[in-house]
């Protein structure tokens, strides 16, 4: 089971822009700790299965799942910082210019 943060509800999630440029994504990614980042990359970019990632990184399957969940969340949070840098706030989110992640 993936780890689940009770705070991870839609109303509490920070917004990110609909369109994100590559540079912003890479900057956000570079701020995610390596242990989470490598799992996110192997799962989301290379689309390796959990089992393949576990074997490649020599970590348990459950650790893959928790790191992936945590890594994705950290990436969303970093991208939300980008949104804030763009001047996007909660009101703007409700206006439909951005969506919660």
């Amino acid at each position: 089971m993936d780890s689940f943060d009770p705070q991870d509800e839609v109303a509490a999630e920070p917004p990110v822009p609909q369109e994100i440029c590559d540079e912003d994504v890479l900057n956000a990614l570079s701020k995610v700790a390596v242990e989470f980042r490598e799992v996110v990359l192997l799962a989301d970019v290379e689309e390796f299965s959990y089992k393949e990632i576990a074997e490649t990184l020599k970590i348990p399957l459950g650790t893959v799942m928790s790191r992936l969940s945590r890594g994705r969340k950290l990436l969303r949070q970093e991208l939300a910082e980008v949104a804030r840098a763009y001047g996007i706030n909660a009101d703007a989110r409700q206006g439909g210019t951005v969506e919660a992640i």
Partner: protein
Amino acid sequence: MKTLSFDSKRCEPVRQNLDSYLSNELLVETVSEVMRHLESCEACSQALESRMRVRDALQRAVASQPVPDSVRADVLRSLRKSQPRSFLHLNTKIWAVGGLAGIALALFSLFGLLWLGLHHGKELVATILKLGVSDHVLCTIKGHNYPEVANPPDEIRKKLGARYAPVVQVVQERLPGFEVLEGHICSPQGNREYVHLITRGQGTIVSVILTKRNGASLPTVKSLLSDESAGLSIYQDHISGMEIAGFESAQYFVFIVSDLSQNEVRQLARGLAPVLNETLRSTALTRLSPLSVSLAVPSNRQWRASR
């Protein structure tokens, strides 16, 4: 104003599964439950949509990053060496390069190494194992080159010649419950020879095939191994409807091919590998013609752990 309603009782179980749903790692039953909920819950539906958007953006961003030439050269050099510890060694190198190129580049170098290593290794394993499946299908299945009643062992040994005769006894002893029906030296299309023993047991036919490596070698990437037996690495695949297990022994690739289950074929390989390895090591087998391993990816290979 748009308001998203979050029902913790209904949404929480779905949120727990959202990452695995996104990675296509849920059981079919759970997928159905998640999908049913998503159809009726706008909040969770938007949460999933946003996650997918971030993932797509990540894929695009990473794809836009070229792997530095120096790193690519390091990776290819390491792969050619095919040393089991080369990954860790190269990871260190990659981070060193990344220190110069920046944190982001280092990350993508690491990622590229893993990607290249695994894919190269997988293709190489599949290419080599496909030789055994091809030999089994052509000679055993389509050619049906074995009798209903087993040929006498002496006759089989005579056909194989003094150099290969010991293999008959090893196969007979190490595959309990299997009877050696036939043994011969095949030469498909006249360009590669292999020793072929055809056995029967557990209601089916199992081929044991030896073909000379001639310098080719299975990769030593740990994650690609299926099993080990007495220090011998065993690789497995499911190709053209057949299960195959293969290992290296002295100058040979040895294949066990059948329509038995993956686990059954693995057990046969485990039982056979150590003794056959010793037999081949102690026998100077030099009669087989050079093996030319094409690195072309087989078109019909199927990976058990398909993504």
